[in-house]
């Protein structure tokens, strides 16, 4: 499976997963809200097609990191709400730590020269 992870899409996917988990960690929200938050958080730097969010959401749900429920939105429409599960919270912490370690390592390499 080694060569698969080299694809840029996978890098993007991993990043997106962490972003989603981070966003949802603030509370229950639907897909549109998540998309809006990611836009805001990343200072609109991350401009992917919005629909790409959904396969990622469903994958996280299947992995048990997110849980979902249908509810009525503020403007009275049927919407699917996602929230973080315990496993998701753990995963988010691990990913954050890993990312910090990696970036610290890369920083120290970049700054050492």
């Amino acid at each position, binding site marked *: 499976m080694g060569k698969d992870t080299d694809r840029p899409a996978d890098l993007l996917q991993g990043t997106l997963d962490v972003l989603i988990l981070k966003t949802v960690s603030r509370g229950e929200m639907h897909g549109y809200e998540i998309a809006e938050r990611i836009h805001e958080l990343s200072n609109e730097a991350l401009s*992917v*097609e919005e629909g790409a969010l*959904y396969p990622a959401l469903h994958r996280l749900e*299947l992995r048990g990191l997110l849980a979902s429920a249908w509810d009525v939105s503020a403007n009275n429409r049927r919407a699917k709400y996602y929230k973080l599960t315990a496993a998701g919270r753990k995963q988010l912490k691990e990913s954050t730590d890993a990312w910090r370690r990696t970036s610290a390592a890369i920083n120290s390499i970049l700054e050492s020269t």
Partner: protein
Amino acid sequence: MFDGLNRLRLRLRAFFHRRRLEKDLEDEFAFHRAMREEALRSSGVKNAETASRRQFGNETRFREQCRELWRFTLLDQLWIDLRYVSRSLSKTWVFTAGAILSVALAIAANTTVFSLLQATLVNSLKFKDPDRLVMISTIPPESPEANEFVAIPEYVALTQETELFDRIGAMSRRSSNLGVADDGLPADRLDGQLFTAPMFNVLGVQPEVGRVFTPAESAIGVPPTVMLISHRLWQSRLGGDPNIADKTVLLDGTATRIIGVMPPSFRFLDQQTDFWRPAPFTPFQLRASTRILTVVAHLNADVSIQQAQDQLNRLAAGFARTDPDRNKGWGLRVRSLSAGYFGDLRQLLFVLQGSAALVLLIACANVAGLTLIRTSARYREMAIRSSLGADRLRIARQCLTESLVLSLTGGLVGVVLAWGTLTLLMANRPMWLSLIDHVAIDSTVFAFALVVSLATGLAFGAAPVLHLARHDLVGWMKGATPFSGSGRDRQRIQRVLVTAQIAFTMMLLIGAGLVIKSFFRMQRADLGFEPHGLVTFQTRLPADQYFKQVGFANGFPQLDVSPVPATLFNRVFERLQALPHIDAAAGINIPPLSGYAMEAPFSIYGQPTNAGPAGSEGKLPNVYFHFVTPNFFKTAGIPLIRGRDFTADDTTETPWVAIINESMARRHWPRQDAIGQRVILDIVHEERPRQIVGIVGDTALSRWDLAPSPMVYLPQLQLPQRYRVPYGQDRVTMTFLLRSNSSLDALIPEVRRTVAEVDPTLAIAQVGMVEQYLGEQIETPRYYMLVLGLLGAIATILSVLGVYGVVAYSVAQRGRELAIRIALGARGRSIVSLVMRETVLFIVVGMPIGFAGALALTRFLNTVLWQVTTTDTAVFASITLLLSTVALIATLIPACRVLRLDPTSTLRAE
């Protein structure tokens, strides 16, 4: 773990609610676009809808991606596995066919026996409320296992136990002569049953035409004048007459009214019953009778069988106190009707089921061995696939899928085979299955076959999977050879399998061997007479016409017997003898080897015994006695050792005589000549001293009881007029034996005519060759032997194939090693012994295990074996010899292939 479960749950939900999933996906996307559209519109973007679509991206692609995620990959993978497995199995079709056949045979055997066993369970009794029906029998003194019939006084006492039974009835058997009919149809012997009036109600059966007996028609002391007939008799002999009810026929010479017809499905215990008459107990019988009744009762709702048994134990103790002559030492037993019906058969079938299970285990070990070989031949393939990213679990699952495909296919073929076997079996139903009305491969049997197939697949699939889990596939690919650790591991499993196969086969073969030996003992037993070419038939006169009850003797009803039957039989005898084609003819009251004989105490005239004067009971052991016509010994082929046979001159007018057998002469006159001595049989007071005029050879009492017993033969004309139950019936029946060169077909009309000339109401029955009847007596053991022999043969073939496969594979795998050895100058013999050594070792280990297993298990055959102990040394020894020879040959043949090995080409090929 939780993660996996959760995913499985979500996927399963998606799998079963696919449509909802699609709708949710659609809604979710639509919601997003609508929100975006509103946001864009409020920020003043024109054409907000198109803009929102553009911003969302390729909706179809995302939907597809989501769908992909939710798809139930397990099922999809299973489908892929199945396709893969069927491709790889069809490539090695010899292996596949062998494995499927092994499993199919084993499953067929198990399913067949299980179906029969299933048919003997409670629900197969087609009576009303069969769970609450019980059978009551008596237990004779000193045979706590045996079940005997119930006597009439005890039955009457049982009918008073209303707190135990809400309904109770009894049956006894009776054959009677029907006819002669007005239209000239000859007299016909029919097998019937005497029912007490409640019996129909107890069993919950109704006639298809007419009605059952009223209590008045079966009242005590009332001679029966009504009967119900079978559907078969109605349709055949009575021509299906629609106005059959109230028609009057002659039964045993008495005008009897037919009041109803029982449906064709109804039968009780016997294979064929043609009429049911009221059981008319006489006042005499209420005081004492022989044990003749089969008693069936319906338990009260709140009474358990155990409670009933406790109460019966108290009753039996009471019977023994009030009538010690008849009941001392006797017990009562209550069993469920189904146990009473099928108890013996179930025991036979349980042994068969056990044997079939052994065959299944052997088949499992066999296929496991073959699969292991196959798997190890595919290590390279698996290693490559594993390195390409297939996970270990997936490969293991594929192995298991393969095993399950094999076992389930085998199971399916097995069920079809079982169906065929059962259809054949029920079409020519052997006697021992006659109680089973109907066998079907129903859902229970099918579930059984399915579970057994699955278990089989898991059992033989486990070996390669375990093996796979144990070692490193990648390492193997890197250059490990079959001689490295992994090969040894595989060999260890193989050895265990070979050992197990040999052990199980040994157990099965010893069991079969014992049964076969027992059967041949039965067949070759010296019966003391010459059955070959002997023709037999029976005649019986209606007892009611020739008996008159006059009192009691020794606690039994006493009868006045008319001299007519003896005279009639004598005339039949004389006429038969005079027939041109008949070399010899004679009659005896009870057919030889029928399994029972009358017995009575006796004393030697003029020889005082320590117990008391002559004529009192119990001073000398009982002897068996028979009534015969002259010429009996010559006809039957029993040697006359000394003295003379009975002649036409031994009549009522001449002094009474007797002939004894050798055993009796040896036991009672060991040092003097028995001829000229006088004996008195203690049957009735009117019995006179008889002078012994001859000594004949010993005969077996029955097929099963060869031990010679003292026996006395009496001329059937020289019997007292006073007689007593239970011996009375024998004064009105006579079995004739004929020796003739004519065929049976030619003889029968002649015999019928002769008998009819003497008395047209005298029906003849059970016409046939004595040898044929003797054959029927051992039909059940014969079947049993065949079935066990067949299972043993299947087991042997399977395990021989297993052993052969292991050795052949080992030779093939070690080709290079062996080639090098040969090239280096090893001699053929040492190479062969090298190949054989290990396998032989494990056969040698398997034998004692099988031996021990057999010692532990053959005791279950105890009831089937005759004159063979369950630890018969000869059988154990010869099976050991047989199996080791066969196994050795199975090892030797592939091992000898080494000799043809060409070292050069073998090494080059590698």
